[in-house]
């Protein structure tokens, strides 16, 4: 191999490298520029469908080791150096306390609606309902729903809600939602991460492909956190034919026992409160 062929080889490698770099940039560009389908008005991006995350951030958004039946996961917090929530010292102590008591203290065990952003990354699907001028998300968990109102009218924030008050606008093909008025009874995951009623969330929903929505929530709460922070995850389209979200009832009975009522078990449904009605022969 002489100098010349070496130089040629070097050049080829360099060119290949540059082309690869270009190709990567190209990929990133294509992803950014994905153009969603439109609703019947020919204008509004079409986010309709049934979606679900594939990670296990619902266990702990800061990341967690593997547990029985649950795979390990990395933090979904993207803008702090260690992937941790920037708690104020006092609040961090509260979180540790919550974590210790999580087996009984998690409000979701009491069947409350999951709140924002927690409802987004639950291990159950959500359905986006949409038409020109309307946008709503129905979460399978506890049949919670959020009607997104245009931000042309101010927040209705004189009360605290389980699912907050949401005002949205379109920035290009990204839906940007401003969420306030959440109760401080909520947790962000099963690990005791929490917020106060001062929480303010800016959500961004952006389609990165025909079957993926990138979900981002920038969270600020000057009472609990030392600075704002952001989590990011991906919602995947459920492509099972004729998929539907199912009815999910999670309620406490008169004796204080909590039930997740499953619609695929008629015995479970019929044996408790109202068994005094002796039905004639089943059909």
């Amino acid at each position: 191999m002489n100098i010349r062929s070496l130089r040629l080889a070097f050049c080829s490698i360099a060119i290949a490298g540059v082309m690869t770099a270009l190709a990567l940039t190209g990929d990133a560009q294509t992803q950014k520029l994905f153009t969603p389908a439109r609703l019947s008005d020919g204008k509004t991006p079409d986010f309709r469908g049934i979606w679900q995350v594939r990670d296990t951030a619902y266990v702990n958004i800061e990341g967690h080791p593997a547990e029985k039946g649950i795979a390990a996961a990395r933090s979904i917090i993207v803008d702090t150096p260690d992937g941790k929530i920037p708690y104020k010292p006092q609040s961090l102590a509260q979180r540790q306390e919550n974590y210790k008591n999580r087996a009984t203290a998690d409000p979701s065990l009491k069947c409350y609606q999951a709140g924002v952003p927690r409802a987004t990354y639950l291990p159950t699907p959500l359905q986006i309902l949409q038409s020109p001028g309307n946008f709503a998300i129905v979460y399978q968990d506890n049949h919670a729903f959020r009607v997104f109102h245009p931000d042309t009218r101010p927040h209705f924030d004189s009360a605290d809600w389980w699912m907050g008050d949401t005002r949205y606008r379109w920035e290009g093909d990204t839906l940007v939602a401003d969420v306030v008025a959440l109760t401080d009874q909520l947790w962000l995951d099963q690990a005791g991460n929490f917020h106060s009623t001062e929480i303010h969330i800016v959500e961004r929903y952006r389609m990165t492909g025909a079957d993926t929505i990138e979900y981002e929530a920038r969270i600020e709460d000057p009472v609990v956190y030392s600075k704002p922070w952001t989590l990011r995850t991906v919602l995947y389209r459920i492509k099972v034919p004729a998929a539907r979200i199912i009815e999910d009832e999670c309620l406490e009975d008169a004796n204080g026992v909590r039930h997740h009522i499953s619609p695929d078990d008629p015995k479970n449904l019929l044996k408790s409160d109202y068994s005094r009605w002796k039905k004639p022969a089943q059909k």
Partner: protein
Amino acid sequence: MKAVSTSHCFVLATALCVLLSAGGSRPLAAQATQAPSNAPSAPLPRLPGGRPDFQGLWLKSAGGFQGLFIGSLDGTNLAAGGARGGGRGGRGGPPPTRYEYTPEAEAERMDRLRRGYEDPEARCHLPGVPRALDQPGGLYPIQIIQDEKYVSLLHEAMHDVRIIPTDNSRHPKNYWAWDGDSRGRWEGDTFVVDVSNFNGRTWLDMAGNFVDENEHVVERFTLTDADTILYEATITDPTVFVKPVEMRFTLKRVPAEQQILEYSCLEGERSLQHYTEEDGGKKLRTK
């Protein structure tokens, strides 16, 4: 029945919320006159595909009674200056629904009437169909979002949701739910919904009327003008009723400046246990 008054506490709280959303300072009378006028000549709103467009925010109306029912057990409507009405059978309201039970079911119904505190809705369970729509008049709005594939009903009451496909598809097997399973189809301009797969635990109202898991409902939604939906439901249940139960009332459009709010029916209706036996409660029962 004290259980009824407890339910009315929910009712009152939510009604106040609706008021707040409309701008708390506006007098009630003014609000009642804000309802959009019914112009019979105006064409029905339609989706691009030509189907009637049911979208918007709707309230069950009790006949000519427009506005809110903030009431007490005897039917007094505080929101209408003490006039009666707004509830089932209120003045100018729809005709009362008639239930004709089999003898065994009639006995069960009378027993449930005495055990009103066991009404599953008082424990925040989903109301089922048609009770999801047959809430007391003028109280809980329903947001309808619609496209060519679904007519979706978002009920403020009990944050109940029904996402109804319009393709007349089949009911699933091995599925039993409070709201059953709804499959819709278009018959001309009427949206007809077939509802089956009920879990059999539903009460139809606070007065002990009930169905079991053999319940089957056919609902008909018809826009009679731009601001009115005629709702009709036929309930059959061969093990409970000797003949189908017919129900009909109207939903009126809510002015655009109002919005649906969150309804949180929380677990543990403790107060039901604290009523004494003679009040229909369980106070004498020990754990």
